[in-house]
């Protein structure tokens, strides 16, 4: 990464005025990057940038309110930051945003499918379009395009939408805007029974660990989450598919008009349920109905917190 040193010196320059800066560092093994909290210049030297930076650094921000923090963001992370600002959950003046153009991050599940056990990974080398993973004594050269997270293959926001320091040359969107929701349209070609069967088989694996919720930068209710409330008791402790689906629908509806499609829910899911698909569907409808995308404009009002007396795009049913 040619611009990484530039980014590091930019962070070092701003570090004295900040409590800490959140970025990514090497994790417990070469394939897992981990969020890095940089307090000293020595910490900043551990900063990494590349396709392994899968976490959304914005997730931490609401709980750090009141501290002066810096945050290193990818394009999708910056949308979460903007959305949190829109909802008045973080303060702009306490925040310094560092951005670099992001070429996409890997999906560890795809790597796992290619190399076998991720626990056996001993070395990872990234050069150009290839990621070489050494696992179980064998070298696997994988094309980055094949192991990229799905969200990155249709990404429209490679560059931070809002940043104080931006290092490097901005990148153009991956695909034309009208192809972003192609996978949703394809899924919708199935019959209702097929779609329900699909979700049933996916939700059947859910263990209700709520990792999806905990990783979500927009899930800020904490102890007040309706999934755990006993009054009203929205969800029972039964583990049947209906309850699991209900939880995911609660999650999706609570993110309507707010989800920035960072994909943290799907990444955190231990059983690889395609959770982004539900949220992407709602985002598609919101784009069509209100011409709105979450996390783009810090001054905008989310569409479900507003209305128009005459809605241009809602066609109600004639009885």
């Amino acid at each position, binding site marked *: 990464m040619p611009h990484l040193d530039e980014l590091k010196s930019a962070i070092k320059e701003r570090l004295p005025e900040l409590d800490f800066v959140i970025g990514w560092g090497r994790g417990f093994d070469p394939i897992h990057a981990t969020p890095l909290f940089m307090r000293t210049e020595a910490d900043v030297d551990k900063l990494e940038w590349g396709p392994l930076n899968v976490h959304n650094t914005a997730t931490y921000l609401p709980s750090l309110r009141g501290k002066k923090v810096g945050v290193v963001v990818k394009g999708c992370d910056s949308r979460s930051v903007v959305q949190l600002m829109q909802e008045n959950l973080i303060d702009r003046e306490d925040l310094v945003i560092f951005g670099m153009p992001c070429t996409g991050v890997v999906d560890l599940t795809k790597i796992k499918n290619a190399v076998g056990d991720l626990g056996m990974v001993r070395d990872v080398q990234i050069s150009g379009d290839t990621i070489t993973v050494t696992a179980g004594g064998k070298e696997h050269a994988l094309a980055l395009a094949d192991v990229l997270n799905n969200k990155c293959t249709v990404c429209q926001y490679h560059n931070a939408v809002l940043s104080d320091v931006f290092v490097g040359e901005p990148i153009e969107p991956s695909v034309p805007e009208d192809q972003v929701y192609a996978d949703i349209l394809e*899924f*919708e070609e199935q019959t*209702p*029974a*097929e*779609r*329900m*069967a*699909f*979700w*049933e088989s996916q*939700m*059947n694996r859910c263990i209700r660990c709520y990792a999806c919720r905990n990783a979500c930068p927009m899930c800020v209710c904490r102890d007040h989450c*309706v999934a755990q409330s006993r009054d009203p008791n*929205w969800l029972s402790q039964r583990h*049947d*598919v*209906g*309850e699991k*689906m*209900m939880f995911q*629908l*609660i999650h*999706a*509806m609570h993110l*309507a008009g707010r989800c920035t499609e960072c994909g943290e829910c799907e990444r955190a899911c231990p059983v690889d349920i395609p959770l982004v698909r*539900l949220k992407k*569907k*709602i985002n598609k*409808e*919101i784009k069509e*109905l*209100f011409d709105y995308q979450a996390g783009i404009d810090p001054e905008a009002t989310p*569409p*479900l917190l507003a*209305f*128009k*007396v005459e*809605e241009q795009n*809602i066609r*109600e*049913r004639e*009885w």
Partner: protein
Amino acid sequence: MPPLAGKELRIVGFLCNWCSYGGADTAGVGRFSQPTDLRIIRVPCSGRIDPLFILRTFMNGADGVLVSGCHPRDCHYSEGNLYARRRLEILQRLMPFIGIEPERFSYTWVSASEGQRWQKVVGTFTDEIHAIGPAKPFGVSMEQLEKQMAGVLASPENAGAEKQEVERAAS
């Protein structure tokens, strides 16, 4: 056993206190005949309706859900139905995505004086639900359902327990 058992479907209606509930009442006072499948839940305003009410209703085995409030601009609380319209529209578009037929959920506006309109709305909606039949409960396969139903029919002495079992599975 109620006289219409087996012929009725479970349709839940969320009606706002100020307009549609009054409209349904007007239809009743005017003695307009209506299908009896609809169970009405009265809410203070259509803006009170969390889209999750509707999802929970389907998850608990409803065959259809109808939401009705005041006409836009006529809301008792000025703007409750305008917020509701946005939420309900998104929910209506999400529903087919998870495999619930789009016909099963509808929202509309009926004022307190529109008894005749209410009759038309509830009649049309109920007919549509009857046309597609009962909803398959989420997470129960068709084979399981048929097996349980066959069990109920085969053993009348165990009907009570089996029926409870079916209801539990469906809820």
